[in-house]
């Protein structure tokens, strides 16, 4: 035997440094940092409190939902309904609180609605074998329509007796002056990262994306895990909806419209592979950050806002290209 047991067991296929260099999220992070440094020097308006505040506002909601989306993408699925589910959850919260109920009831109803939407997606996909794309596209339409029905397509900006509590929840800064949404995002990212790395559930999520058939044969409860994953995705959208409602202080039936594309872009730029089996929580945050920095910088640099889509699309293509090249090198 050429290698001893201890060496075989202790041997890492790559050191942590090369592991880092092979990680897509790492390079995207470098890009984000470079862009921020450049913008700080090149413009007077980037590194101002107000602008940074704007950036975090826009980026945290996408990032929170991208965490759930990353789980879905790791299993090899997709969830197009997150923007609408965000809207529906926000609207349920708003309508319930507006009707005079307390914030606890409002949040419970809102989260419950999100979980129901996620469970519907998950059951249709896992047990009835519908393609995730189709079912969640249906939910995209259904959830927003229900939000319009619930509110009669009006703007809700009075949240009953707990109005101030809701605004504090979303708009406050309870911890060292860090905006609450950022805190929630960090906590949720840590939880997601922990679950993916240290729990059986997380291991199964990766196994399903790697080889669903194999996972089923080895006794992984594939269907149940899938349902849970879609519920988590909807839950993330619901949480983002609640926080955003408190932050904005108003809900309209078009919030979250088109957000699914930003969320998916964030996950993919952060290294999640749409073919399944690959993705990280940190990648979701970093991907969301890059998108927001691109958007923000175009404005500050005086570039026509119509270019936004081209740059974000370019970032997606680059990210996937990077992944291709890496796979190509590995297979040689």
């Amino acid at each position, binding site marked *: 035997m050429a290698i001893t047991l201890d060496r075989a*067991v202790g041997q890492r296929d790559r050191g942590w440094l090369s592991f880092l260099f092979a990680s897509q999220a790492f390079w995207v992070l470098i890009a984000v940092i470079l862009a921020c440094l450049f913008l700080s020097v090149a413009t007077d308006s980037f590194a101002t409190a107000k602008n940074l505040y704007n950036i975090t506002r826009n980026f945290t909601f996408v990032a929170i939902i991208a965490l759930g989306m990353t789980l879905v993408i790791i299993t090899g699925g997709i969830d197009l309904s997150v923007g609408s589910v965000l809207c529906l959850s926000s609207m349920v919260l708003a309508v319930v609180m507006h009707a005079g109920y307390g914030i606890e009831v409002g949040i419970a109803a809102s989260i419950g609605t999100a979980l129901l939407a996620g469970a519907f997606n998950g059951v249709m996909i896992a047990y009835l074998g519908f393609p995730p794309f189709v079912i969640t596209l249906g939910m995209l339409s259904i959830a927003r329509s229900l939000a319009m029905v619930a509110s009669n397509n009006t703007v809700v900006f009075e949240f009953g007796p707990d109005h101030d509590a809701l605004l504090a929840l979303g708009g406050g800064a309870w911890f060292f002056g860090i905006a609450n949404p950022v805190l929630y995002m960090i906590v949720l990212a840590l939880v997601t990262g922990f679950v993916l790395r240290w729990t059986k559930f997380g291991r199964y999520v990766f196994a399903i994306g790697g080889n669903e058939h194999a996972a089923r044969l080895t006794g992984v409860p594939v269907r149940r895990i899938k349902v849970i994953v879609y519920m988590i995705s909807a839950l993330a959208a619901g949480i983002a909806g609640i926080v955003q409602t408190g932050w904005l202080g108003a809900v309209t039936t078009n919030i979250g419209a088109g957000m699914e594309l930003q969320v998916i872009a964030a996950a993919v730029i952060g290294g999640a592979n749409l073919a399944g089996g690959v993705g990280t929580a940190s990648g979701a945050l970093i991907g969301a950050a890059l998108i927001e920095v691109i958007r923000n910088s175009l404005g500050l640099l005086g570039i026509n806002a119509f270019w936004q889509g081209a740059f974000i699309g370019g970032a997606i293509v680059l990210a996937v290209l990077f992944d291709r090249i890496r796979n190509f090198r590995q297979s040689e």
Partner: protein
Amino acid sequence: MAVLELVNISKHFGAIQAVTDVSLSLNRGEVVGLMGDNGAGKSTLVKMIAGNFRPSQGTMRLDGAEIVLHRPVEARQHGIEIVYQDLALCDNLTAAANVFLGREIRRGIGPLSILDYKAMYRRAGEIFKELKSETPPRDFVRQMSGGQRQAVAIARTMLSDAKIVLMDEPTAAISVRQVAEVLNLIRALRDRGIAVVLISHRMPDVFTVADRVIVMRRGRKVADKAIEQSSPEEVTGLITGAIEQV
């Protein structure tokens, strides 16, 4: 006494009759070569033993007691392990993660328990060492050779005290040197008293390690005899149908 007995087992998929009226018994520490042409029903037969398919008809007895298997997990609980033809590995996971898939070692208690990477790397390393395979537990299966992938799939069967190990074409896609490794492993399993069913197309493999050969043709068992009483020529005849039945 036979560890496993199949009595008049049949399986059809809709109109397709995959296995017809097969009876056989397996003894402790015995290697049985299962041969037959493509589509003869070999995989279907072992998948019924492994709990992947329910037989349409017939009964199975384990240690004399009748068993009905609904899922692969139940077969595993009875000490029946299978190495699938396509190996059923997740390329995006490490060797150790694949070995323990569905049976992860955890530390901590109840809902607070977390994956015990260290214990799984160590145990997987020990098993690979027993298999005399140089398979690093931390490497991703994506990067592995055919022989290493085979070792990962076989290592799974060694996690628990198996009574029966079913192998579906373990030597189909690997190099000659690796075939010798797999055959050695089969002998190691046999020496522990495990009954091994080896599906193979390779005549030399079966005549090297098997104690008995069973031949299937079009879903039926057409031969079941001690290896020293048969010959590759006879088995070839049985597979092709040149010899009707023995």
